[in-house]
């Protein structure tokens, strides 16, 4: 395959294999003569020029070959499908055994609660690296009922868990549309433009204040950034598991955000102490001393409380709006009676 590709014109290669275009442009082959067969260009180019690019002739051919194989593999590789992720207990910080046999399925929303240092991050890290008794906790993680084969475990880069947290920010100096387009292209989705529009529309539905594709990423407000991160993770990330860390104050519609992720069959783990968010989950893992001390199913009574809490939240949001528009708070909305 590689020989056939090398005999094509430079422009034609770039057209057929967009991921090679950047490399060819970097070599300067494009500027010399876009129509010339690449193999001919490579044979004729002066050694000094290749040396400046930091490559030898044979390394250029090997690089193009490796790149083609890699891209073909990406295009043909099916996205990882996870029906069940099982976490088997290890031991707590004192070495006592942890009783845990947790099964996570697509669409599950599970909250992690526990004081700082209790071991929430350890649990998430164990899932992320598909621990096999070889992390400090001694936990085992099974994928679809079996230990993952080392090829998946050490596949690079592993894309099991996508993260959205309060401490993350966008640092790249691009507009929202240009950057999401770049992300969509590297995910090799079929209709990039439509997907980018969808991501931005989704993010705008989650955040209070709308932004446009032209808005610079670095100028988004905290709420807008979080909303865009969640919409992008739901619609463009390949990761089947999404970890959300402390987004309670981010100023986005939490229920809608979760609905969006669940609709995409993600397993959602939320590290939170926000009652509204915690009760939106189906289960809560109580983490103490480095181990899961209890798994609490959200009860019917809790769901009733959730409805009342949502009303309180709405009320508070209304008060915030009033402040934002220069109003006074001299009367309160009707708070729901305790259920």
């Amino acid at each position: 395959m590689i020989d056939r590709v090398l005999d094509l014109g430079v422009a034609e290669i770039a057209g057929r294999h967009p991921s090679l275009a950047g490399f060819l442009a970097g070599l300067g082959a494009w500027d010399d003569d876009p129509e010339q067969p690449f193999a001919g260009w490579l044979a004729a180019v002066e050694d000094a020029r290749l040396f400046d690019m930091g490559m030898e002739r044979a390394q250029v051919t090997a690089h193009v070959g490796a790149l083609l194989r890699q891209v073909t593999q990406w295009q043909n590789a099916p996205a990882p499908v996870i029906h069940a992720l099982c976490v088997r207990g290890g031991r707590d910080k004192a070495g006592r055994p942890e009783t845990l046999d947790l099964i996570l399925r697509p669409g599950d929303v599970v909250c992690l609660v526990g004081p700082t240092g209790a071991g929430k991050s350890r649990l998430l890290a164990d899932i992320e690296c598909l621990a096999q008794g070889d992390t400090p906790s001694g936990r085992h993680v099974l994928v679809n009922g079996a230990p993952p084969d080392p090829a998946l475990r050490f596949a690079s880069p592993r894309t099991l868990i996508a993260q959205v947290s309060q401490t993350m920010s966008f640092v790249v100096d691009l507009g929202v549309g240009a950057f999401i387009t770049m992300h969509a292209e590297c995910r090799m989705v079929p209709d990039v433009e439509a997907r980018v529009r969808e991501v931005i529309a989704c993010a705008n539905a989650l955040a209070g204040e709308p932004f446009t594709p032209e808005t610079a990423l670095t100028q988004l407000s905290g709420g807008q950034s979080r909303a865009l991160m969640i919409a992008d993770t739901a619609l463009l990330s390949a990761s089947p598991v999404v970890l959300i860390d402390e987004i309670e104050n981010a100023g986005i519609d939490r229920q809608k955000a979760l609905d969006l992720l669940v609709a995409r069959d993600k397993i959602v783990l939320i590290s939170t102490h926000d009652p509204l968010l915690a009760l939106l989950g189906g289960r809560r893992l109580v983490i103490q001393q480095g181990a899961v001390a209890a798994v609490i199913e959200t009860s019917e009574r809790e769901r009733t409380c959730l409805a009342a809490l949502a009303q309180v939240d709405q009320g508070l949001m209304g008060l915030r709006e009033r402040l934002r528009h220069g109003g006074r708070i001299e009367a309160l909305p009707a708070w729901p009676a305790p259920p």
Partner: protein
Amino acid sequence: MRLIIVAGPPSVGKTSVIVRTAAVLGQGGPRVGVLKFDALATDDDTVYRAAGLPVVAGLSGSLCPDHFFVSNIDDGLAWGKGQGFDFLIAESAGLCNRCSPHLHGVLGVCVVDALSGVHTPRKIGPMLRLADVVVITKGDIVSQAEREVFAYNVRLANPRAAVLFFNGITGQGAGDLAFHARLAQPQDSLEGRRLRFSMPSAVCPYCVGETTVGREHQRGAVRKMSFETPAGESA
């Protein structure tokens, strides 16, 4: 003894990556030593000692740090063998993105920083392109989307390497890098071993102490930029 060469631009977190990985490699008995190359000054040897890792630090001073590295790596290997290490991790100074300390047959690791921008992988030369493992640090403070685009660009720049994310603060990723380090080939001597890519030539008067600006002081390997009037502007 297995040798691992770690390179990367300044301030990407090479030392944290090494300390965390050494802790995993040392579990259950194996001895890990560190060889630290730097340019003008380094405090990293105290960091390594504090982590209980035997270390020798070398400063290149007025010499090109990467040339200094090649001139000393074989002696470093002999030192490590004499100390009875099971793993020797050599950290290079990594100053200009053009140089690459990777040797044929020796596990080469390149550390890059997700904060440095999604286009950076393309701009780093043979140091990244010819590495066996590329470690991406500081991914925990950029958005998931940027992490994914960054990793994708790393894989376009080096389709052969294993790519992994590493959190230098929590040590997340150390198990993965240790997995690759255990697969490194045992080394007896580096005598006659080849660099994967030659280092830039440095034979102009400024390499050997010239300090004056001006055409008459530019001799030897000199290359001049061309300055054209931008289109649409009159001279």
